[in-house]
C-alpha cells in the first residue's frame, strides 16, 4: 500500500485544479472547466480534512514504522534514526501478533457467514409474503445496532458471568469466559449487534427489485423458496458482497469488545486481537513497532477485502 499512498498524499487538495496543467498537454482540445471556484468550494473542505486525517496519518504511520530508537550507551538520550525495515522484521518474528491474526481470521471464517446468513434469512422473510408484523420485526432486530460495541460487550459480559447472569443455570455449567469459549462469546456479541444492520442493507436491496421480476416466476408456479434462491439472491449479490467486505474489515479490526472482556475474563490477553497488540505496544511505549503493526494490519485488511471483492466478481461473471 505504501506506493499508492505515497503518490496520493497530496492528491485531494491539489487534484481539483492542478491536474489540468498535466492533462492539457496530451489531450488537444482544451475544455475549459466551468465553475472552478464553486468546485473548489465544494471539494476543498472535505479534501483538506481527508488529507489531514486520512492520508497524512497513513503516510506518517509508514514513516514512523521505518524508524528505530537509538540510545547513546545504556542511559543516554534516545533518538529516532532511520532503521529501514528492521521494525517489519520484528513484526514478522512476533509470534503473538500472528497468533492474534490467526485468531481473528478463525473468528471471521465462522462468525461472518453465520451473521450474514442470518441477516439474509431475515431479510428474505421480511420480503416474503409469509410474514406478518414486518414493521415490528424489522425494528426489533435492528435495535441492537443502537447499542455501542463497548456497551454491548459490558452487557453480555454480565449475561455470561457465572453468578450475575439471569441464565445462571446455563452459565454455572458452561464457562463462556474460559480460554476455549471466550472468542466465540465475543463472536456472539458482534453477531447480536450487527445482524439487524446487515439485514436492513440486504432488505433495502430486496425492496429495490421490481416486483414484476418474480411475479412472472410465481405465475410459473415457483414457490417462495425457489423465488428467493433463483431470483432474489442473485439480484442482491452486490449488497451481500458489500456487507461481507465491511464485516471482514470489522473482524480484523476487533478491539472494543475484547478490550472490555479483559475485565471479565483473564483468558483475553493483551495481544488477543491485532488491534489490541497495537494498543498494548504503543502504550509500552514502542510507537515505531506499533506503527509497523498498524501498517501490516492495514495492508492485510486491504488485501483481504480487495481479494474477496475480486473473487466474488469473477464468480458473478461466470
Amino acid at each position, binding site marked *: 500500500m505504501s506506493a*499508492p499512498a505515497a503518490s496520493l498524499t497530496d*492528491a*485531494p487538495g491539489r*487534484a481539483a*485544479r492542478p*491536474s*489540468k496543467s498535466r*492533462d492539457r498537454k496530451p489531450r488537444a482540445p482544451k475544455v475549459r472547466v466551468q465553475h472552478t471556484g*464553486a*468546485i473548489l*468550494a*465544494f*471539494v476543498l*473542505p472535505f*479534501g483538506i480534512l*481527508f488529507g489531514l*486525517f*486520512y492520508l497524512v*496519518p497513513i503516510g*506518517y*504511520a509508514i514513516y*514512523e514504522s521505518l524508524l528505530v530508537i537509538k540510545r547513546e550507551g545504556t542511559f543516554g538520550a534516545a533518538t529516532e534514526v532511520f532503521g529501514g525495515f528492521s521494525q517489519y522484521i520484528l513484526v514478522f518474528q512476533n509470534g503473538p501478533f500472528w497468533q492474534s491474526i490467526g485468531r481473528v481470521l478463525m473468528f471471521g471464517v465462522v462468525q461472518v457467514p453465520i451473521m450474514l446468513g442470518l441477516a439474509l434469512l*431475515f431479510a428474505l422473510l421480511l420480503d416474503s409474503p*409469509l*410474514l406478518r408484523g414486518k414493521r415490528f*420485526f424489522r*425494528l*426489533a*432486530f435492528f435495535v*441492537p445496532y443502537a*447499542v*455501542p*460495541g*463497548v*456497551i454491548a460487550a*459490558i*452487557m453480555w*459480559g454480565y449475561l455470561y458471568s457465572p453468578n*450475575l447472569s439471569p441464565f445462571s443455570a446455563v452459565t454455572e455449567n458452561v464457562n463462556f469466559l474460559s480460554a476455549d469459549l471466550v472468542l466465540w462469546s465475543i463472536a456472539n456479541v458482534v453477531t447480536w449487534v450487527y445482524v439487524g444492520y446487515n439485514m436492513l442493507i440486504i432488505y433495502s*436491496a430486496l*425492496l*429495490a427489485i421490481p416486483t414484476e421480476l418474480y411475479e412472472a416466476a*410465481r405465475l410459473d408456479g415457483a414457490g*417462495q423458496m425457489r423465488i428467493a434462491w433463483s431470483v432474489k439472491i442473485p439480484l442482491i449479490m452486490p*449488497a451481500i458482497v458489500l456487507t461481507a467486505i465491511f464485516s471482514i474489515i*470489522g473482524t*480484523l479490526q476487533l*478491539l*472494543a469488545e475484547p478490550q472490555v472482556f479483559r*475485565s471479565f475474563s483473564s483468558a483475553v490477553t493483551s495481544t488477543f486481537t491485532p*488491534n489490541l497488540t497495537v*494498543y498494548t505496544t*504503543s502504550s509500552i511505549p514502542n*510507537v515505531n513497532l506499533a506503527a509497523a503493526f*498498524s501498517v501490516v*494490519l*492495514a495492508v492485510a485488511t*486491504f488485501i483481504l477485502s*480487495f481479494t474477496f*471483492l475480486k473473487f466474488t466478481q469473477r464468480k458473478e461473471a461466470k
Partner: protein
Amino acid sequence: MSTMIPAPAQPARGIRPAQSKTPKAPLAQRESPFARGGALIVMGVFTLYFLVPIWWLLVAASKNRSQFNTTNPLWFADFSLFENIGNLVAYRDGVYLKWMLNSALYAGGGAAIGTIIAGMCGYALAKYRFPGRELIFNVVLGGVLVPATALALPLFLIFSQISLTNTFWSVFLPSLVSPFGVYLARIYASASVPDELIEAARLDGAGEVRTFFTVSVRMMVPALVTVFLFQFVAIWNNFFLPLIMLRDETLFPVTLGLYAWNSQVNQIPVLRDYVLIGALLSIIPLIIIFLLLQRFWRNGLSAGSVK
C-alpha cells in the same frame, strides 16, 4: 475498485421504496399455513435473542442493590429506576452527564458538519466535470476500505507532535471525515438532482453554491440524513480513538467512561450499578434518533446498496 461503484444512472430505482410492493398482501393467503408458522417461529425466537438482553438491562437497572441478586433477574422487583438514575447523575459531581454531553457534542457536531462537507464534495463529484474527478472519487473510495481504527495510532502520534492529544479537538476533528458519506452523496446526487434544475437556477442568476444550498440539498435529503445517522452512530460508538487520545476524564465520551468504570468494578463494587444504569441510558438517544428519522434513512440506505 471502481467496479464497486454503481453506475450513476441506475440507482434511481433504489430511491423508490416499498410502495410498489404493497399490492402483494392479498397473495399472502395462498401460502401454506405450515410455511407461515415456520417463518413466525424463526422470527419469534430471534426476537427473544435480540430483545431479552436489553430487557434484562432495563430490569437490572430498575432494582436496588440488595434485590439485584436475590430477585427474578428478568422481572421487576421494587421499581427504583429513577432513584438509581438520580444516584448515577449525582455520582462524582455528575461526571456521567458530562460524558453524555461530550458524546452528544462529538457525535452530533461531528456528524452535522461531516455530513455537510461530505454532501458538498459528493455533489461536486456528481454534478461537475473537472479533471481529477475520478481520481478523487477513487481515493475517497479507497478511504472507505481503510478502517478508522487503523488511523487511531498514527493520528495520536501526529497530535502528540503538536501537543493536541487529550483535547476535545483530538477526537472531534478526525470524526468529521466520512468517505462513505461522499460515496453515498455522489451516487444519490447523480440519480436524484436533475441537471435541468441546476441549469434553471443558473438562468435565474443564482450562484452555484447558493443553488446547492437552496435547491439541490432538498433533493438529497434522504441521502444526507442517512449519512448523518451512520456517522452519528460511528462517532457515538467510536472507542479506539478516544481511548488512545484522552486521559482527562471530563473529556470522555460515554462509551469510554463506562468502559473505565467497568474495569474498576472489582475495586469499587458500587460502580457495577452505575455501569448498568449508565449503559441503559446511553442506548436511549440512538434509539430515539433512529425512530424519528426512520422514514429517511431507509430510503437512503437502498441507494447505497443497489448496484
